[in-house]
């Protein structure tokens, strides 16, 4: 096993627009890529949109008036930021409503991912959000479903064509039941009344999705983290913009583990690739910013000891190694996990039935590539 990987140079083939986007994300706006006269703003915005970081980029570039963005680019970025701010506020309000109902029903839960990260490590509206994410104790799933129905949620997804929530397909329901790491997605239509007025014209859309995870990894994964233990050390975090309101979230170590293992799951499992949920700059940005935010608590012997105790040293090293390669951070060395991964593991994944997958290129190339399946050539798969 290698002890440390050589830094990966930028690949000229990726283009200045991509490099600029990486630098804005990784450097938090403190460094900016050189922009030649031929800078393709359309390409830059498409990269940002594909990776779910347009509001973040908009927020970062606002701090640099000298960036001299073309008017149409500036307008598009600011519109994205404004719409996302409204969406975040709307989802916060709904998360608060859900949280209160869950507490009353005696459910053990935390809010997770976007809703927490948007208040903790991002400036207002800079973190794109799509839904309300929770982690619950698996045995409390029936109570959660009862709460959701009481609050007007329906099991299914919103269909813009039908303008209503449509039930999950039979195949999807079978997947949910055979892989009980998540509840089936519930969606609440917001098509009339006071709520619709609040969301009209905002970026929120005519529906709200509630996603309840019952695992920090995935069903039948060899990396299992007991939700009981993770939920035992909950903390309360102030919900930005709602005076006095707090939300339960994981304590820092499990917060980082949950976000990093989410990225690992999406990157590792072939089915995420097929469903278009593979790694993105936003997912890496969450891990990077959380690492920087909690570095004093994470780059410690006690956190390292927890990682080994949970048996997640390899997947965590996988995530951190790739993150370091893309953003130039040194997290895997700081946490002394370099020896846990080698090139073979770093280019591995998992196909259906637990069969191994292999991919080619660097993580930077994988992120850049729009057709990820081409990086998994059939002749390399087991």
């Amino acid at each position, binding site marked *: 096993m290698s002890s440390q990987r050589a830094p990966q140079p930028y690949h000229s083939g990726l283009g200045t627009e991509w490099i600029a986007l990486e630098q804005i994300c990784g450097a938090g706006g403190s460094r900016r890529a050189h922009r030649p006269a031929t800078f393709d703003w359309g390409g830059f915005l498409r990269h940002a949109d594909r990776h779910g970081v347009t509001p973040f980029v908009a927020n970062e570039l606002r701090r640099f008036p000298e960036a001299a963005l073309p008017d149409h680019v500036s307008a598009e970025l600011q519109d994205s930021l404004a719409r996302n701010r409204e969406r975040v506020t709307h989802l916060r309000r709904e998360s608060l409503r859900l949280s209160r109902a869950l507490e009353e029903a005696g459910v053990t839960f935390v809010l997770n991912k976007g809703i927490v990260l948007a208040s903790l490590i991002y400036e207002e509206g800079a973190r794109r959000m799509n839904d309300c994410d929770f982690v619950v104790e698996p045995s409390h799933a029936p109570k959660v479903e009862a709460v959701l129905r009481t609050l007007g949620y329906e099991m299914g997804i919103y269909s813009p064509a039908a303008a209503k929530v449509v039930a999950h397909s*039979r*195949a999807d329901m*079978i*997947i949910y*039941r*055979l892989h009980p790491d998540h509840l089936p997605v519930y969606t609440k239509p917001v098509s009339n009344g006071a709520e619709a007025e609040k969301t009209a014209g905002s970026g929120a859309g005519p529906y709200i999705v509630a996603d309840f995870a019952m695992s920090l990894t995935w069903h039948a994964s060899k990396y299992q983290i007991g939700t009981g233990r993770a939920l035992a050390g909950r903390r309360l975090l102030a919900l930005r913009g709602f005076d006095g309101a707090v939300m339960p979230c994981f304590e820092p170590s499990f917060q980082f583990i949950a976000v990093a293992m989410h990225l690992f799951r999406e990157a590792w499992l072939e089915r995420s690739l097929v469903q278009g949920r593979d790694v993105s700059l936003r997912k890496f940005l969450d891990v990077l910013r959380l690492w920087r935010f909690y570095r004093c608590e994470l780059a410690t012997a006690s956190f390292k000891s927890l990682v080994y105790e949970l048996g997640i040293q390899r997947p965590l090293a996988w995530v951190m190694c790739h993150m370091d390669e893309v953003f130039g951070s040194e997290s895997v060395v700081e946490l002394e996990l370099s020896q846990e991964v080698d090139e073979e593991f770093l280019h591995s994944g998992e196909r*259906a*039935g*637990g069969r191994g997958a292999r991919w080619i290129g660097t993580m930077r190339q994988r992120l850049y590539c729009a057709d990820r399946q081409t990086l998994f050539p059939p002749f390399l798969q087991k």
Partner: protein
Amino acid sequence: VTFDRNKFCEIVRRHARFLSPAEDLPTTISLQQLGLDSVGSIDLLLDLEQAFECHFPDTLLTANTFQNATTLELALRSCIQSCNQSAGSKP
């Protein structure tokens, strides 16, 4: 709807990729060993539901159901029985 063992075996065989055409469907060897993966399990279930016109209830959608051909057959039989009962109880 009645259980038809030949139809059941024929459907399971289609998804047991490692089972040669000359072999009988083993009743105790795990379906995973016979080549059924997680994606295959979903397709197998959908094929059985379509062929026997029934829906597996959530309580039967577990890994235990897919242990081997016997556990799957038992689950399907119970499912058919429930479907027939509920159809019989409708006015």
